[in-house]
Each structure stands twice: as structure tokens, then as C-alpha cells.
């Protein structure tokens, strides 16, 4: 559903998926790679809080499918429930590549699907797999070529 939208990054890890899963879901681990302080139980629908320095934000867990998929929403207005359209969705996908190797992919997507009819969403996904980062890069380079130096 989020193919090619916004941010998509991945890394290959020399460890089984179960080990990677613990790294991304256990609070004492999360605080090492993500937020400075983590108040979160990784269960579907759980509300938590992430503290980054003197800033913080709420987070709501969506999908928990060990050891394959984890998703949560954040960056939504205080006092509202996060849904498609008012929040950013972060999705982790773990793909085993042999017994001791895992490909970990993360996507962060946001408002692009706000209030769109299904047809439009599909068209967007089909026509714009390159994502916003690439789109903006391309625009910026067109612009740089055009600008007199």
C-alpha cells in the first residue's frame, strides 16, 4: 500500500529475524536506536510516548506480527487519535535471507493518501513509485539547470 511513497530505507543484518525483532520492539533496545526515553508496550493499539531530548511525541502501535511486521503512527495533533491523514505511518518489514541474515526495511509515509478516493490512490501508487524524495530531487535538479549561474 505504501510502495514508493515518501521515505523507504533498508539494511541487511547478519542476525536471524527473531533477534532483529527483539531489537526493534524491546523498550530498552528501542531507547538505544530511536528515542532517548521510551514508554511503550509493543501491542496492537497500544499508546506510548517517545522522548527525544527536550521534545517528545505520542505514538500508537498498529500492526504487530512477530517477527515480520511492525507499524506505528506518530506526528499527529495532540488530543486526536492518529488515523490516515493526520499522522505519519512507520512500517518495519523483516525478511529472512537464510537462517542468519535479515533484510530490514522501513517506510515512513504520511498525508499523501488523505481523503483520496480509491481510484486516485491506485493511480498515485502506479504512476509515482519514485516517491517524494526522488520527485523533489528531480525538480530541484531541473531548477538548478535552469537557474542562471
Amino acid at each position, binding site marked *: 500500500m505504501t510502495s514508493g511513497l515518501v521515505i523507504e530505507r533498508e539494511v541487511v543484518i547478519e542476525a536471524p529475524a527473531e533477534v532483529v525483532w527483539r531489537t526493534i520492539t524491546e523498550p530498552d533496545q528501542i531507547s538505544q536506536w530511536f528515542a532517548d526515553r521510551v514508554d511503550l508496550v509493543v501491542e496492537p493499539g497500544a499508546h506510548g510516548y517517545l522522548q527525544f531530548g527536550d521534545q517528545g511525541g505520542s505514538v500508537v502501535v498498529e500492526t504487530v506480527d512477530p517477527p515480520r511486521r511492525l507499524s506505528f503512527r506518530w506526528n499527529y495533533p495532540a488530543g486526536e487519535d492518529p488515523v490516515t491523514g493526520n499522522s505519519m505511518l512507520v512500517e518495519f518489514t523483516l525478511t529472512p535471507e537464510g537462517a542468519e541474515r535479515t533484510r530490514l526495511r522501513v517506510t515512513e509515509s504520511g498525508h499523501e493518501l488523505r481523503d483520496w478516493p480509491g481510484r486516485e490512490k491506485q493511480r498515485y501508487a502506479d504512476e509515482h513509485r519514485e516517491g517524494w524524495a526522488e520527485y523533489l530531487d528531480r*525538480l530541484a535538479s*531541473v531548477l538548478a539547470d535552469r537557474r542562471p549561474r
Partner: protein
Amino acid sequence: MTTPADDELWSAIADPSRRRVLDLVVSNGDVSASWLADRVPFSRQAVAKHLVVLERAGLVSRRKRGREVVYQVQADRLDRATRAMAELAAQWDQRLATIKRLAEAAHAATTPAVPGG
């Protein structure tokens, strides 16, 4: 973390039709709404609406040229957007690198050394 201003920007470029309009403004510069309407498969009214959204997001600005109004891209806003995206991606690269280090260390700690391997 995104800001409300970013939200406006992301939703402005999320619409494929709007991106088409923005593409044309970027590659041609100083174009009028009717010039744009001749080059896209949707109505003049739709072009006008897209221009309003793009202008509100700070991606294009307009000025008068003789009797017509022409639009140009706001380069600094576009540059800022590109940088914001690159920064978000870099943050995730950094997080993934840390996850990799943690998971590989955890795995190594639980894996008994294989004799002769």
C-alpha cells in the same frame, strides 16, 4: 518530526495533477494559468485551484506581467523541502545502522563459537 508548514507542503505535492502543474512551472517558468491549462488534460478551473494550493504551500508565487498574471517556482522553498526529505531519510539510515549493530552484537553474544569455523 514534521511541522504544520511541512504538512501543507506534502499535501500540496501529493496530488498527481498538482505535481503535473508544478512540473510545468518548474521547467518553463513565468507561465500563465491559461498557458498551463492548454498543456494539461484537466479544466482551467482545476488549474486555478491547483495554483492556489501550490501558492499557499509556498511552492509557486505569482506576479503581473503586463495584463496577465504569471507563475514561477519558489526555489528556496523547493530547496528546503528537498533538504527536509534528505534529512528524514538520513535519520532512518542512522537508526537502521544502529539496529544492525545492536542485533548483530546480540546475535554474536548468543551464538557459541564454532570450533574450527
